[in-house]
């Protein structure tokens, strides 16, 4: 009887420890949780860097928005700067791009932008009040906001072209793009390509990045097959 109680207690304790470990397993202990996903973007009113005029979130009502927090002292921010510059030009008619300067000086920022390009509307947040409202936990961080003003996630790393395109496709909420994404993912599920498994984040990013650029599901599938073929050739002994 006592033995049964002992075994029961040991099993319960082991179960409890495994449960706690399973909850934490695969999570980055240094990652800062982000709770604003799916919530309305916090309002702000701050100065433009170029002409000193005040800009509010409400000025962009009804338009998808990409908000990038960055600084000139931040290496990864410099690395992603050309990606944002190109993205702002590529989606100029569909999405508004805002840069919010984090913990930096106006002088340094203007100097950097003069040298590296100034396609985005750049805003200055001297006391980081907007950064606190948006739960910024470092730079670069990019927030994607739908035309209804709802945050659809943030990207807390330097952006690349594929990721930027894919994230923008999500906030566009365009049924035509979504139809091509679905068609391409269905095709890839059937094709079972080694380089483009479904479901997988990288495959979704690849499909979305091309769909937002106007590629059809058939074209995306053909490109995936071609790319997969090349990759298999590279891997051949």
């Amino acid at each position, binding site marked *: 009887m*006592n033995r049964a*109680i*002992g075994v029961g*207690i040991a099993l319960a*304790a082991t179960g*409890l420890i495994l449960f*706690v470990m399973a*909850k934490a397993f695969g999570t980055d202990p*240094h990652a*800062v*949780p*982000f*709770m*604003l996903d799916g*919530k309305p973007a916090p309002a702000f009113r701050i100065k433009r860097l170029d002409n000193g005029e005040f800009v509010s979130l409400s000025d962009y009502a009804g338009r998808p928005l990409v908000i990038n927090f960055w600084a000139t002292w931040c290496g990864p921010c410099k690395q992603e700067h050309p990606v944002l510059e190109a993205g702002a030009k590529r989606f100029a008619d569909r999405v508004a791009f805002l840069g919010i300067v984090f*913990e930096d000086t106006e002088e340094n920022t203007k100097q950097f932008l003069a040298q590296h390009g100034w396609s985005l509307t750049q805003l200055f947040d001297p*006391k*980081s*009040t907007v*950064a*606190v*409202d*948006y*739960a*910024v*936990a*470092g730079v670069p961080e990019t927030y994607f906001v739908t035309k209804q003003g709802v945050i659809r996630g943030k990207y807390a790393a330097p952006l690349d072209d594929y990721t930027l395109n894919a994230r923008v496709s999500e906030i566009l909420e365009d049924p035509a793009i979504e139809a091509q994404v679905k068609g391409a993912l269905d095709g890839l599920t059937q094709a079972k390509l080694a380089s483009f498994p479904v479901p997988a984040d990288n495959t979704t990013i690849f499909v979305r990045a091309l769909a937002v650029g106007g590629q059809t599901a058939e074209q995306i599938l053909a490109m995936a097959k071609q790319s997969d073929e090349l990759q298999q050739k590279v891997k051949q002994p």
Partner: protein
Amino acid sequence: MSTVLALGLVMVLGQGYAPPREGQAPLDTEREARVQRLGKQLRCAVCQGVAISDSPASMARAQLDKVRELVAENKSDQEILDYFVARYGEWVLLEPTTGGLNTVLWTAPVGLLAVGLLLIWLQSKKRGLPSELAPAPSAPDAAKAAPAAPAPQSPDEDPYLAQVRADLEK
């Protein structure tokens, strides 16, 4: 003047003091002490496990300024903590709440200690440890339990020891 008073009060209380940044109006002594107390409970977003009132990082200063702003708006402590939890989750609280799954965290050490003691007690009862290590029964209980309790074995009666002695003598 009120900033100086706040500084004095907080220093006397041994809490440390993070002053408002340039351009932000200082609060009166009582409310500034509240700002510092709340700042001790909130984690800096860009540091490693440091309270916003203890961190020199400018982001921590910005977070503390937000606390100051909310205190100035007469928000309650809970409303201010909720503002940060709504953005960073419970991660931002240096002392986790006691509700929900966290109840397990708070009670598990006590529970595991109780389980450990129970197991020790069960084992000691089973093996018949010397009386000074076993829990002392009350007098009437001891009287009742005495006839039923197994008498401690002397080393001579232990069959294992007897076998060892017999083997050694061969």
